[in-house]
């Protein structure tokens, strides 16, 4: 008889898994172009740039593919937002760096880092937020006077979830996508507990 194999890491049984995979909606990343930038010059020579120093001290640049927005600071630091995956964010950031290079600056591409990832999904049933805030008071903040959703601050992983009465869930604060998935798998059984509360 064959020796049975024991898995090295615990496997979540299929019956307990939600079967729902949160979809990534936004990635925020930063990169250091490692050179001082003349923002007025960039705004003059680039079609896709806007610069209003009285309002904000950075050039706002956009590209069509991947559809993203970048904030480019005179220090050479850059923020890239709007991508739907880590790879897209990196590709977009590289394109912005290339635009800056083409404008005559010795831009490099140092310390690229994903700073925040936002995901969303739908559990497909309405949720009694009043019940959830009662049973999970230490993690939840539900102020309908301020915001229609419940703000759930999960400790492990360190993710903030916005939970709405419609069953839609937004997850944010992740540095890696696995944190988003793990956070959702943690919250799903809790939410299911409020499914039949009506």
């Amino acid at each position, binding site marked *: 008889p064959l020796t049975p194999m024991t898995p090295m890491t615990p496997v979540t049984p299929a019956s307990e898994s939600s*079967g*729902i*995979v*949160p*979809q990534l909606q936004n990635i925020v990343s930063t990169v250091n172009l490692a050179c001082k930038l003349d923002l007025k010059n960039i705004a*003059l*020579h*680039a*079609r*896709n740039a806007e610069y209003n120093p009285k309002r904000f001290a950075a050039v706002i640049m956009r*590209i069509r593919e*991947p559809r993203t927005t970048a904030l480019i600071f005179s220090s050479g630091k850059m923020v890239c937002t709007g991508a*739907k*995956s*880590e*790879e*897209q*964010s*990196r*590709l977009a950031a*590289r*394109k912005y760096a*290339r*635009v800056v290079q*083409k*404008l005559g600056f010795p831009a490099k591409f140092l310390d690229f880092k994903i700073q925040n990832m936002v*995901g*969303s*999904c*739908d*559990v*497909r*049933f*309405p*949720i*009694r*937020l*009043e019940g959830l*805030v*009662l049973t999970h*008071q*230490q993690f939840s*903040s*539900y*102020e*309908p*006077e*301020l*915001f*229609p*959703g419940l703000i759930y601050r999960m400790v492990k992983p360190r993710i903030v979830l916005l939970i*709405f*009465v*419609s*069953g839609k869930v937004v997850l944010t604060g992740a540095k890696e996508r696995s944190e988003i998935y793990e956070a959702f798998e943690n919250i799903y059984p809790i939410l299911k507990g409020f*499914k039949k509360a*009506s």
Partner: protein
Amino acid sequence: TTWPNTGCFSEVAYSQSTGQKEQLSRCLQRGIRRVQDLCKVLQLPTVFEETAVSYFQRALQHPSFHLVSLEKKELLGGCCIFVTCRQHNWPLTMGTICSLLYVKQELFASVYLSLQKELGLSVPALSLGDLVKTHLNSFQLFQHAANVPAPFVEDKEKMVARTMQIVELASETWLVTGRHPIPIVTAAAFLSWQSLQPAARLTCTFARFCKLAGVDLPPPAHLRLKELLEILLRMASQLAWLRVFNMDKKTVVKHIGDLLQHRIFLLKNAFCLEDEEEQRAVAPGEGSPGSPPAAGGAAQEEGCPSERKRQHEGGPRPLLPPCLINPRKRLRTAAPSASDSAITGDEPISDSEIEQYLRGPEEIRAFRKAK
């Protein structure tokens, strides 16, 4: 003392023996006085004042609040009172405290949420029942007055009891979750007041009712009233002795008493209380690999006709939040495309693609001229 004994004077610092370090800063003193004054205006018990002051002192010493603007420091006092009231189930709304402080709710909200987070304060949810009692306290319909016609005066206890029942009904039918509470309470108070003496009051509009009661009519209250009436009409359609009448939004008010009395039975019959997941199967959810768009679309085509047919035949409607019954937003596309998934981030970037974002010399000249 003799000169040889003066050596011991340096043993105890001046600030220690005169309590200089224990003095409160002017900012803190002003803030504490403000908190105390606000508590007096709100007629809060002394223990609330003590708790709010201690929260304020703790908050002001916290690095997150030590260097904030004076405006925010003044707000902080109000936030501490708000938290204290909520912890003691004293139904103080944000709207009330904001109007006392003359601040915008957005700014109050940001300071309040920071306070909750930085001090690790546990703030229980607002009790709707308590809010109903407090909000109705401000209504001027319980005593005879020059501007209130006699038929409009109502017994306070009866009105509170009925309003409470209507608010509970609203809560059970998903009209409360995620919404501002005051508009719902105001709409429920109006319906409760009308239903207690419908003959005299059915002709009174919601706006006039609020004016007579001396309360504001918040904009969403009209929508909440409409939603409540829809629920009541559906319930009325299940009452055997009401089926013969052609119920509408005016006439159903006369029967609110009966509807509330048989609430549980009527809700069960008027609404489909089966598994909500089946009810939601009419639309594909996002991020569900098990329901790709094509299959989801087919499910939608399948689900909708039967759902519409049920509603058309006057059958039970699913008991769901209004945002699910009448979704305003268009559903987003489910999964990213295969080409999006294939991106590695290290793809070569063509010069032509980058050059499309650069201005030519002519364009730069024209742009400079235009500026």
